[in-house]
């Protein structure tokens, strides 16, 4: 897929149709959508600063464990160690927004593994068995 927000919506619908065809449970479908939504929008928003079109790779492996891999040729970024921590307490007025999507994914019990391979970011996500 291209690094374009409009493309993201199309890919998500496509993924949903495939998960539906594979009889993936609604709970897992929700988790996969949230994962791709958060990770791919981060790549689209932050990985590139050259204004050019880039291809982002996406692989779904619906086995056990259920696995999703995202690859991009953007700036090196390890979301597991470099994402800004979200601020989750304190009054509403003082809460900055940042790192929220990744924080939620970590809370969901997903196993995430980051590698920089051939000048590409590769993030592999495994979903816990149900």
């Amino acid at each position, binding site marked *: 897929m291209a690094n374009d*927000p409009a493309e*993201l*919506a199309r890919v998500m619908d496509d993924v949903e149709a495939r998960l539906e065809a594979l009889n993936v449970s*609604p*709970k897992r479908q*929700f988790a996969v*959508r*949230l994962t791709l*939504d*958060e990770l791919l*929008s981060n790549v689209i928003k932050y990985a590139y600063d050259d204004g050019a079109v880039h291809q982002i790779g996406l692989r779904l492996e619906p086995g056990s464990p259920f696995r999703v891999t995202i690859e991009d040729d953007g700036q090196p970024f390890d979301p597991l160690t470099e994402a800004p921590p*979200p601020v*989750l*307490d304190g*009054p*509403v*007025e003082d*809460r900055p*927004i940042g790192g*929220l*999507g990744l*924080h*939620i994914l970590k*809370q*969901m019990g997903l196993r995430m593994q980051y590698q920089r391979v051939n000048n590409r970011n590769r993030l592999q996500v495994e979903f816990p068995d149900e």
Partner: protein
Amino acid sequence: MNISTEKQDQVSIVSAEGRLDAVGAPEVENAIKNLVREGSRKLVFDMAKVAYISSAGLRCLLVLVKTMKSAGGTMVLSGLVPSVREVMAFSGFDSILSLADDRAAALGLLK
């Protein structure tokens, strides 16, 4: 996203159907901000038919809570489905947003 609005006594009730994500969130944000601009100070956002929420949706709710609060009003969210509620809990947002089980309970909180 389908959004509808009604008024019961002094309370505006906004219901949305669809996904509160990067696409749906701006629509809800505009609809509710308009109501606040028009003078609504008690508002229920009925999320019973919101099947999905992402961090973009959470951001929008945070902005709306702040908008309502600085206008001197109150917004209550009602009827969250379990998966949406779970995301709220993971994000810690459940402690800063007013949540009610259903519309009637939300209206009760705004009495």
